[in-house]
């Protein structure tokens, strides 16, 4: 704040200095030239006066010289007492001898013993006049006069007056400058004050008052124009800021909304997980119940039918025997259905542990089993060598058993049965297949192939529960793979499957069927 005061007061001081300096110079010049003129005039007047004085007295003393009367001359000289400036005077004879002399103050300054050259001489603060006294062309003598020069006193006097006038002038100039500088500096200071206040309060709506119509007024006007511009800009800026703040708050709101939705989603996932867990538990209970409770009545049906046959072999007509055998067959079949269903559900529940499995080897062993169980069949089996897959060995075995079992079964009525197990590349993934030249199927029903209990053949043609392909599909899906089929009635069937998620970017295989089991 002090700095600002210094600066604002320095403006006043500068103005004052300029005014006072100018005044001083003007006074100097004016008074100096007046004094110089006066001194010059005085000098001239005074020396002329002295010369006149000397001539007058010289003339007065001519008779005294002519009559050689020094007393008269002395009286004449004594008249100089009326002129206090004249210190001494003398009259010399024609040969230079002192004829008469006068001293204002005896013993002060003795007159020189001989007259000097004719004329007026200024020596220091004294003036000496030597005037030849001439009468009728003859030099009668010389008049000598020595007087104190009054110039110094006069100059002193002038200086005193000039000093007084200068001081007076300066005082007047000072008072006047106070008023003048206010009229000049006030508008500027006013503008400065407004600028300072704006800097402090950032209130751009203030305006500098217009105190004059001169350049300062123009300056204030420009300043106000600038302020208006700044105000408009800062207003626009504030609006932009408010807009930004609004956007930010909208964004924050959206963010909160996202968080809320996320937590909702998490909650939903938890709910679903809980529901799923409880559904799984229900499934477990159901399976247990199926495996235990449904089998018991079957055992009763089967057991008592047999008991009937065993205990009353003769009492029953043939028809009854036939019915009883149908009853036991049904019970057996139902047991098989329950068994398959349970195995399917176990597949779903079993944990998946992948490791490298030699598919060729696995298929070979399954075929060996089939040959052992059914030694009368002659089937040509082609298995591609060295097929390695990353899969759960137990689940994969179940799938391959079912696929090869199907192929084995459905080629029973083919003349030259042939089963092929192989693989092919499809982009980045490997597709395995089991192909046969058996009964085949109608592609129209392809979507029903993989459903549980779905059968495309009559029981008396090819027996089965309709669980096999559902089981295979379940195994493939649990591995993240796909299964689809291709077939033609009487020409055979082919089952294709993958055992891993297709790699991104890989071309999709023609999808026909992967019905949910």
């Amino acid at each position, binding site marked *: 704040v002090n700095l600002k005061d210094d600066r604002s007061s320095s403006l006043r001081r500068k103005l004052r200095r300029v005014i006072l300096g100018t005044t001083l110079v003007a006074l100097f010049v004016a008074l100096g030239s007046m004094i110089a003129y006066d001194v010059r005039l005085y000098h001239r007047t005074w020396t002329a006066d002295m010369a006149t004085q000397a001539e007058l007295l010289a003339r007065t003393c001519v008779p005294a010289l002519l009559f050689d009367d020094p007393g008269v001359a002395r009286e004449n000289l004594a008249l100089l007492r009326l002129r206090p400036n004249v210190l001494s005077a003398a009259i010399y004879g024609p040969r230079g001898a002192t004829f008469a002399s006068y001293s204002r103050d005896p013993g002060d300054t003795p007159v020189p013993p001989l007259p000097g050259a004719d004329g007026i001489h200024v020596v220091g603060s004294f003036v000496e006049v030597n005037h030849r006294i001439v009468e009728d062309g003859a030099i009668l003598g010389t008049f000598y006069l020595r007087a104190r020069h009054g110039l110094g006193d006069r100059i002193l006097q002038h200086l005193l007056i000039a000093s007084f006038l200068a001081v007076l002038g300066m005082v007047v100039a000072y008072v006047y400058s106070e008023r003048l500088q206010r009229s000049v500096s006030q508008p500027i200071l006013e503008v400065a004050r407004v600028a300072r206040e704006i800097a402090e309060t950032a209130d751009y709506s203030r305006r500098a008052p217009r105190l004059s119509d001169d350049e300062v007024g123009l300056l204030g006007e420009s300043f106000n124009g600038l302020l208006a511009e700044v105000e408009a800009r800062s207003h626009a800026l504030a609006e932009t800021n408010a807009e930004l703040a609004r956007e930010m708050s909208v964004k924050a709101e959206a963010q909160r909304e996202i968080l809320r939705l996320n937590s909702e989603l998490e909650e939903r996932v938890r709910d679903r997980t809980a529901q799923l867990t409880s559904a799984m538990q229900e499934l477990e209970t159901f399976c247990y119940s199926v495996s235990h409770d449904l089998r018991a009545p079957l055992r*009763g049906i*089967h057991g008592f039918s*047999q008991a009937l046959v065993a205990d009353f072999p003769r009492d029953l007509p043939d028809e009854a025997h036939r019915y009883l055998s149908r009853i036991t067959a049904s019970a057996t079949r139902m047991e098989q259905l329950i068994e398959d269903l349970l195995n399917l559900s176990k597949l779903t529940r079993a944990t998946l542990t992948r490791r490298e499995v030699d598919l060729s080897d696995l298929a070979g062993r399954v075929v060996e089993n089939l040959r052992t169980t059914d030694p009368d069949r002659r089937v040509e089996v082609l298995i591609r060598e060295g097929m390695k897959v990353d899969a759960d060995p137990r689940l994969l075995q179940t799938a391959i058993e079912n696929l090869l079992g199907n192929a084995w079964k459905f080629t029973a009525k083919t003349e030259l049965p042939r089963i092929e197990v192989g693989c092919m590349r499809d982009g980045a993934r490997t597709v395995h297949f089991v192909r046969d030249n058996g009964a085949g199927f109608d592609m129209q029903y392809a979507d029903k192939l993989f459903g549980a209990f779905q059968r495309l053949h009559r029981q008396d043609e090819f027996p089965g529960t309709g669980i096999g392909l559902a089981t295979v599909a379940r195994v493939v899906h649990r591995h993240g793979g796909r299964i689809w089929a291709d077939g033609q009635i009487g020409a055979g069937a082919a089952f294709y499957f993958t055992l891993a998620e297709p790699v991104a970017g890989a071309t999709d295989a023609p999808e026909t069927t992967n019905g949910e089991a």
Partner: protein
Amino acid sequence: MPEKVILLVEDNPDDEELTLRALRSSKVANEVVVARDGQEAIDYLFGPPGGLLGEEREPPALVLLDLKLPKLTGIEVLRRIRAEPRMRLTPVVVMTSSNEEEDVLNSYESGANSYVRKPVQFGAFVNAVSQLGVYWLLLNESPKQPR
């Protein structure tokens, strides 16, 4: 010396009759006592609850135990039997419809000597029961007296 009894713990009357029939046809001579739930089995083996213990009943020669039983489950019955020093070594065969891995494991951990799944087909069922009878009552040598 009278033959020791076989204790059949079975709640399903059909299964009970079929089992008895199978035992008969396999020429097992021992008397068969049937308990129709877990509590009955315990009552037979340990005397009725709160009742004075009379002469201690001789442990059965073989216990055929179903798992899914009213009141006390087969596993609970099995644990009670194994907790009793007298019957620590009595052969217990779990005969049930279930082939759940958990049931098999639980049974053996609780001290079952054998676990047999009852086949649905009667021929297989008779075969299984008679094999059990032959094995546990004739072939298998049990310690005469528990230490």
